[in-house]
């Protein structure tokens, strides 16, 4: 394969990757460090949430009937349908910012 054809193929690969992948950044309030990863557009939010929680070293927990959960927020809205894909969430965009959010209860 000539150098030109190789460069053309690499360029095509990059374009294809952009079209088929979404770069995700997840923020979490107790830290300035963000979780960042590229995923295929068909990736469901369950996976993204799990990866982000593992990165931030947090876990959902239960105590009797009490359940403490985390939520992914996008543009201020909770994304609790975790079967949704990144492609469906991002639309035409190639990178999105999410926030990992919890519910605080004090008594």
């Amino acid at each position, binding site marked *: 394969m000539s150098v030109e054809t190789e460069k053309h193929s690499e360029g095509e690969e990059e374009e294809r990757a952009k079209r088929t992948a979404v770069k995700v950044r997840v923020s979490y309030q107790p830290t300035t460090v963000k979780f960042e990863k590229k995923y295929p557009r068909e990736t469901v939010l369950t996976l993204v949430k799990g990866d982000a929680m593992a990165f931030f070293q947090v876990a959902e927990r239960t105590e009797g009937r*009490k359940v403490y959960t985390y939520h992914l927020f996008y543009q201020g809205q*909770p994304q609790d349908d975790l079967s949704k894909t990144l492609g469906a969430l991002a639309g035409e965009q190639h990178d999105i910012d999410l926030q990992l959010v*919890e519910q605080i209860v004090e008594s």
Partner: protein
Amino acid sequence: MTHLYPPIARWMIPEAALEATLRDLRRTGQLGREGGALWLGDRASDATILTVATASGEGVLERTGSWSLSPTAYGRIGEWAIARGRVLLALIHSHGGAGELATSLSPTDEFATVHVPDFLSVVVGRRGDEDDPTAWGYHVFEDGRFRRLGAAEVAERIVWISSPVEHLRFDETIVEELGV
């Protein structure tokens, strides 16, 4: 590699944060309810509180015996903080009564809150009408659980400084800057 949760040796708290926080706790306390606020700032070995975020309105439940923030309210203040590089350093809330038991974390307090290393959870007695911070309960999250700081450790690690503080009010729909 950037540390996710840099260890905190001391919390540097502006004296102005005292009045900004207590003003709101007293408001809810006068209604016979618990109140709460978030302390945001820079996380470092000497972590500095820069912002007091008091919560009232949509998504904030203030009841006798409990106070809670909806995820949407928490997310709203989170957007503000993330945009400005502030991190959540502490949660402060009120209980009725006074003394060690009244200013201890309840099982719900320990369970339904932020669990990251060196997160500080503070309890103010007398439904917020306690302006002596040495009478408050300070609890730090370490090794998977909250531990109450003893008096000597409070004197060493909770440092009051003369410095301005930003004061915000937030709920699910708004973050309102109340001044410095």
